[in-house]
C-alpha cells in the first residue's frame, strides 16, 4: 500500500501547471488527493509525474457576484461547506456537502478534484448538473468554458485535453425563494451514494411550479437530469400526487448495475429519493421547512 515512485512538480501558477501538463508524459494533477492518493497507494494509478496544485496561486476562493457563484477549483470542500455566502445563495451545495466523505477528507478534498475525478456518485458533480454549472478550463491556448452537461465524456472521464486543467466552476444562482433538497442513500454515511437525488423548485405568485430541476447521481456514468420529471412539474400546482407522478419518471431511467446494487434497485431508489427530495424542496419553497 505504498505509492510507486514519481517525479514531483510544484508549480506556482496556472500557466506553469499547464506548461508542465503539455511537456510531461503520463502526468497527473494532484488536487486534494483524497481520491488520487488511495489510487496511488493501491497502484491502480501510476503516473510518472505528479503536478501538485496545492501551491498554485489564485485557484481557491468563493465569490457571489451578479447572480453567479464562482468557486475556484482548489477550494476545499470544508470551506464550501462552511461558507455563509454559499449557504445563503446556493444551499443545495451546502446540503450535499454534508454527505461528502468525512471532516478530515473535506479539509483536504477540493471541488475541482471532485469534478475531475468524476465518480458517478460524486455529490458535487450531481449538484453541478442540477444547477447547470459551467466549468472553467485553462489550457495552452488560454481559457474556455465547458457546460456541465458536456463535461463528462464517459465513465470517470472529463472532457479535458491532456494539457488542460479545471480552474473554477460557475453556477448561475436560483431566485432567493427557491426550494431545494439533496438526498442520498449510501451504505454508510460518508460513502459514495448508491443513488442521490437533487431537486430544485421555484413557485410563481399563484403557487404553481414555475421552474424545476430534478437530477440523479449514481445511476450512470454521469449525473442524469430527469427532464421528463421536470416537464411534468412545471406549470402545475404542487401536490403530493404530482410529486409521486414526477418521481415515477425515474423508474423508467436506464440505471447501471454493479456489485453494490442491481439496476432495478437503483431505479426504485431514484423514484423514492426524488419524491422525498421534491416534497422537501416544496416545503422549503413555501417556508414550511428549514
Amino acid at each position, binding site marked *: 500500500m505504498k505509492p510507486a515512485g514519481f517525479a514531483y512538480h510544484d508549480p506556482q501558477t496556472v500557466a506553469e501547471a499547464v506548461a508542465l501538463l503539455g511537456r510531461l508524459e503520463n502526468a497527473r494533477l494532484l488536487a486534494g488527493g483524497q481520491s488520487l*492518493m488511495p489510487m496511488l497507494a493501491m497502484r491502480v494509478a501510476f503516473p510518472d509525474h505528479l503536478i501538485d496544485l496545492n501551491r498554485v496561486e489564485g485557484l481557491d476562493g468563493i465569490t457571489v457576484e451578479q447572480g453567479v457563484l464562482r468557486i475556484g477549483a482548489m477550494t476545499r470542500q470544508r470551506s464550501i461547506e462552511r461558507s455563509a455566502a454559499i449557504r445563503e445563495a446556493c444551499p443545495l451545495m451546502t446540503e450535499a456537502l454534508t454527505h461528502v466523505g468525512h471532516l478530515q477528507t473535506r479539509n483536504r478534498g477540493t471541488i475541482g478534484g471532485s469534478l475531475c475525478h468524476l465518480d458517478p456518485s460524486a455529490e458535487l458533480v450531481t449538484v453541478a448538473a442540477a444547477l447547470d454549472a459551467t466549468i472553467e478550463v485553462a489550457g495552452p491556448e488560454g481559457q474556455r468554458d465547458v457546460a456541465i452537461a458536456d463535461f463528462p465524456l464517459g465513465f470517470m472521464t472529463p472532457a479535458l485535453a491532456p494539457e488542460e486543467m479545471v480552474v473554477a466552476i460557475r453556477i448561475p444562482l436560483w431566485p432567493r425563494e427557491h426550494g431545494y433538497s439533496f438526498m442520498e442513500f449510501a451504505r454508510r454515511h460518508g460513502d459514495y451514494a448508491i443513488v442521490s437525488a437533487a431537486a430544485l423548485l421555484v413557485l410563481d405568485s399563484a403557487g404553481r411550479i414555475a421552474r424545476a430541476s430534478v437530477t440523479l447521481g449514481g445511476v450512470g456514468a454521469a449525473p442524469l437530469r430527469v427532464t421528463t420529471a421536470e416537464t411534468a412539474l412545471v406549470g402545475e400546482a404542487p401536490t403530493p400526487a404530482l410529486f409521486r407522478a414526477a418521481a415515477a419518471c425515474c423508474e423508467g431511467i436506464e440505471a447501471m448495475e454493479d456489485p453494490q446494487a442491481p439496476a432495478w434497485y437503483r431505479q426504485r431508489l431514484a423514484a423514492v429519493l426524488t419524491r422525498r427530495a421534491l416534497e422537501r424542496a416544496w416545503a422549503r419553497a413555501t417556508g414550511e421547512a428549514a
Partner: protein
Amino acid sequence: MTHELHDITLVVNGRSHPIRVEARRTLADAIREECGLTGTHLGCEHGVCGACTVLLDDQPVRACLMFAVQADGRAIRTVEGLAHGDTLSPLQKAFIEQHALQCGYCTPGFLMLGTAILEQNPDIGDEELIEILSSNLCRCTGYANILRAVRAAAAAMREEGVA
C-alpha cells in the same frame, strides 16, 4: 528521477525535523520513519480508517492521504504533542477514565480528531459529534465510550476554563 530525494522540514509539535524523503513518501510514513514519532498509526494506508489522523495547521487530516513534501513547513500536531510532560491532556485523561480504548490501535487517530473537535466546537451537538467520530474506525470499543470521553473532556475543560 522518480526516486529523487527532497529536502524538507516537517514541523511536528513545534519541533523542526529537517528530513530527506522521496516524493512518494506519505506524511504518515515520514512522521513515523524519518521523524521517529511512531504514535501516529497506520491502519489501512488508503484513507478509510482514520488511524493516521494528525492536525495540519490545526485541522484534522489523514496523514496517509498526503505526501510529506506537501507538508513542508506546515504546522503538524501528533499524539505525542498532547501531553505536557507527564500531565495528560483532558481528552487523554477522559479516554482512560471512560474506557475509550482497548487495543489502542485507533486511539491516536481518535485523540487527534477529538482534540480538533474540542478546540473548534466544544459544544458540538450529538448528531454532528457522532457523524465526525464515525469517520474513524475502532474495532474494539463500539464507539460509545469514545463519545462519552469527548463529552467528559469537554466538561472537564469547561470546568477548568480551558474552553
